[in-house]
């Protein structure tokens, strides 16, 4: 890994294998982020990553190391009863429904903070809808918060994709 190999990149200089690999890794990450701007397939994959979708945890974790801070327009709605997804709106929030605009990973609204205890109350908000929009791509995912003997589980119910 530390052997010097005769690769000339900047004139007569040489790069060690690990240095070259480091540059390649950065290049690959950057390429994916640039593709995100232009390729709907990549946009969908990365927004699915934000919604904690993945064929497997390993696949999700690979995408997780591509920088994602303050990406997309993300919103979350939470209610005690199921909502009509076609009527989800930021401007008209029905009584008893919680809505928030989130900088990244909308589901963290449930887990990351002091308010976790609220989801353990009998009258808790159970139905979760998250929507992320980027250019013409919109992904809406639906979750339910279920109680079992180990606590609460965020269980995926379905997803819809829209294009504008």
């Amino acid at each position, binding site marked *: *890994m*530390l052997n010097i190999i005769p690769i000339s990149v900047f004139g007569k*200089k*040489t*790069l*060690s294998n*690990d*240095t070259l690999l*480091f*540059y390649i890794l*950065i290049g690959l*990450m*950057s390429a994916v*982020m*640039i593709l*995100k*701007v232009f390729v709907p397939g990549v946009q969908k994959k990365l927004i699915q990553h934000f919604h*904690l*979708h*993945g064929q497997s*945890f390993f696949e*999700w*974790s690979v995408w*997780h*190391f*591509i*920088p*994602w*801070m*303050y*990406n*997309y*327009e993300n919103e979350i709605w939470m209610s005690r009863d199921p909502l009509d997804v076609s009527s989800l709106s*930021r401007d008209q929030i029905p009584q008893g429904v919680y809505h928030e*605009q*989130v*900088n*990244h*990973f909308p*589901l*963290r609204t*449930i*887990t*990351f*903070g*002091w308010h*976790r*205890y609220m*989801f*353990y109350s009998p009258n808790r908000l159970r139905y979760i809808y998250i929507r992320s*929009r*980027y*250019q013409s791509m919109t992904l809406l995912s639906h979750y339910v918060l279920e109680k079992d003997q*180990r*606590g*609460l*589980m*965020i*269980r*995926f119910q379905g997803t819809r994709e829209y294009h504008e």
Partner: protein
Amino acid sequence: MNEARENMSVVRIAMAYWLLGWYMKILFFSHYLRNYIWDFPIRHELFPAFFSHPLTANLAYALPLFFIPAILFPAITGRTGLLLANSVFLICAVILSLHSDTYNDATFLVSFWVALWMVWVTLHLDRQDENFRRHARLLALCLVAMIFLGGFTGKLTSAYWNGEVVYHTHFLSSPYWPFSWLEKVCSAEQLRSLATIVSRGIILMELFIVFCPLMSFRYVFLLIPCLMASVTIFNTWKILSVMGGLIGMLLACLVWNEQDRKMKSANDAKINA
């Protein structure tokens, strides 16, 4: 061995700032990890048991503290101690980046990339050539550019360009200064316009930082940290948990800048003699 000592200074400075960023939100995490996630567990189907268990998150968060002696006493711990410490930093950053209770915090993602750079530098600690110093600094800049490329590309959508997202996430009902103050003194229209200006400013600043690998080494290792520190004005001090490691990595590179300057002066003196 003077050059190796310079390399060691770079690594130690970077590690100190890494730890500063990692523990910047210790008041929140000490309560959240020690109490909340145990008392009110919330799981997600995606995460396996290891990356859902509260003990995993607690151990990964606390472990870097035990490697502070490697930074404070390098003469005793040596290169092996530094390499072990940075490897542990890297592994802890991977764990918390992927844990169900902490995956959303960018602190751990950025800590991962900075720790990777610190491991790489430590592996080359004995290198005394100018080529190594140049690539080390360039890699640091490329990492910063890559991270800000993520932020920049993710904001290339109308809701960010017209300020809609920033208005709702930062300007409305924010408890933090200056947003809380602005909401009191500005009308709704003024606030909305300000959000658009700030949002576009952030996008353009991120684009500027993306080009930092092309900038002169003489200025970039001070300029970019200043820009990153200024982001706290438009966010909270907690953003330093994300920026701390990056700022430290760049400031540490100033040691190599100074080393190059001294070597050039010495060479010039020899030529003139």
